[in-house]
């Protein structure tokens, strides 16, 4: 499957002399997304793809599960309501139409008003990938854990818990992973200050 895609890509790059490798590379996962240079069509295409997935999710899990569909370049991004986070990811994995069975990236970002957790899901059988994300308030940052569904995000969730302070409910082993247990605060939060959150020594806070 990958090979014949490969073949026609090689052919096309021969015609274009200085084969801009970036662009051909991007077109790889979804053949449909193979688009010329201006970025708009890619985003539009991705949004359409995202909308289709949104319809599928909402059919199963009810309206309002997908709060927003945007796109970054050729990647559709679906924002999912935090309450349905685990259900939606499980659906995307198990649904025969979707089959996003492989988590590539698990990242958390502090946006000052809320904290966002981002997943990049890859469908091994089809070679397409999407991004899903969800938001949680900064104070009382709580999300359902994905670790029971995808054991591979176990440590990633611990890392987000450690560095961003998001509590994952249902996580089997939620401890700090990078910092030690006596650490004060969550370093990747934007309001974290190295000076206010001096590391504790010997288990006792300083000052």
């Amino acid at each position, binding site marked *: 499957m*990958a090979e014949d895609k*490969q073949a026609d*890509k*090689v052919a096309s*790059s021969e015609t274009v002399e*200085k*084969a*801009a*490798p*970036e662009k*051909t*590379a*991007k077109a*790889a*996962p979804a053949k449909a997304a193979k688009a010329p*240079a201006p*970025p708009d069509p890619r985003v539009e295409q991705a949004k359409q793809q995202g909308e289709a997935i949104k319809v599928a999710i909402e059919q199963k899990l009810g309206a309002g599960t997908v709060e927003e569909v945007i796109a*970054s*370049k050729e*990647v559709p*991004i679906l924002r999912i309501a935090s309450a349905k986070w685990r259900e939606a990811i499980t659906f995307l994995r198990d649904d025969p139409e979707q089959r996003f*069975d*492989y*988590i*590539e*990236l698990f*990242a*958390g*970002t*502090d946006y000052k008003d809320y904290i966002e957790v*981002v997943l*990049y899901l890859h469908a*091994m059988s089809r*070679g397409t990938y999407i*991004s899903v994300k969800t938001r949680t308030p900064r104070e009382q940052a709580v999300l359902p854990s994905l670790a029971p569904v*995808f*054991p*591979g*995000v*176990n*440590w*990633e969730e611990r890392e987000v818990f450690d*560095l961003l302070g998001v509590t994952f409910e249902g996580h089997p082993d939620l401890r*700090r*992973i*990078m*910092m*030690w247990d006596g650490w004060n605060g969550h*370093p*990747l939060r934007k309001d974290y200050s190295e000076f206010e959150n001096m590391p504790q020594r010997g288990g006792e806070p300083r000052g």
Partner: protein
Amino acid sequence: MSTSLRTEEMILNVGPQHPSTHGVFRLVVTLDGEQIIDADPVVGYLHRGTEKLAEGLQYTQIIPYTDRLDYLAAMLNNYALVHTVEYALDLEIPARAEYLRVIVMELNRIASHLLFLGTYLLDLGAMSPFLYVFQERERIVQLFNEICGARLTYNYMRVGGVKWDAPPGWIEKVRDFIPFMREKVKMYDKLISGNEIFLHRVRGIGVITKEDALQYSLSGINLRSTGIAFDLRKNRPYSLYNQFEFDVVTGKNGDCFDRYYLHLEEIRQSLRIVEQAVAQIPEGPVLGKVPKLIRVPAGEYYRSIEGARGELGVYIVSDGKDKPYRLKLRRPSFVNLQILRKLLIGQSMANLIAILGAVDIVLGEVDA
């Protein structure tokens, strides 16, 4: 052995200073006799907060920090970062720069895999391969030294190209290196792959199933050893990889032997790529037209490449400034290491090192 005999459990602390944990990695093993009933990997001893540091640095300034992640394959780390920035900027890269990048990346992959062979065999008690692989690695390191002036932390790539063009004669040296390395790979295959003691220690040990591999988000050789042909160079081609002929080699059983053998095979495939790249490399500039101050347009971008240890990705959230708002590194070693607990439980203590070694981690990357 006998189930009626009650034995006391013993907790054994492997690491953080242990010769076979390849760095500061700690494994708290609960033993019942020789059997492992629980294993708790403890990481973070080498945590330097690269992601936090990156938020205060311009994109070019972050490049040397990526060198320190997987310090055995720093070229690939460099590329993962600059590639994501270039992707966000939709930059065109001069052809020669891309070729040079591919050459150094594949050479670095070879160097990294060679070191795996050496250290893995050292873990299993064979001392000589460790010293043998350093000879070939030394040649690669010398090549890197000539092209970028560093042996380990290269800081070679830039957004838009590479920092230095290859010095005169460098390409020829790489060309000469290929047949030399081919011979050596053949030699290793002969010396190691048939060794009865070695086979007894790695065959059928630490088996990963396809389902587990996907569930645990394994990537790289750990994933391919289970038979899933997922190589980002083929499945989501970046750089020039769609122009080169090479195979994605997969294993059958997902055991330690497959993981060992795939390293050897990947060296062969990398040599094929280097050979083609060296034959095709055009003349021209090595650094494209890039603004002095790189400002990534607001948005979020994720690109991943096939690193030496798996999917090496960089996720950038930008607010349009010259520094990333958030930079997340998808470190393959970190993700791959999670399966260790599952692999170890139920195994005998004697297999611990064989399994840990085959997962192939670099602690600089695990802890970032």
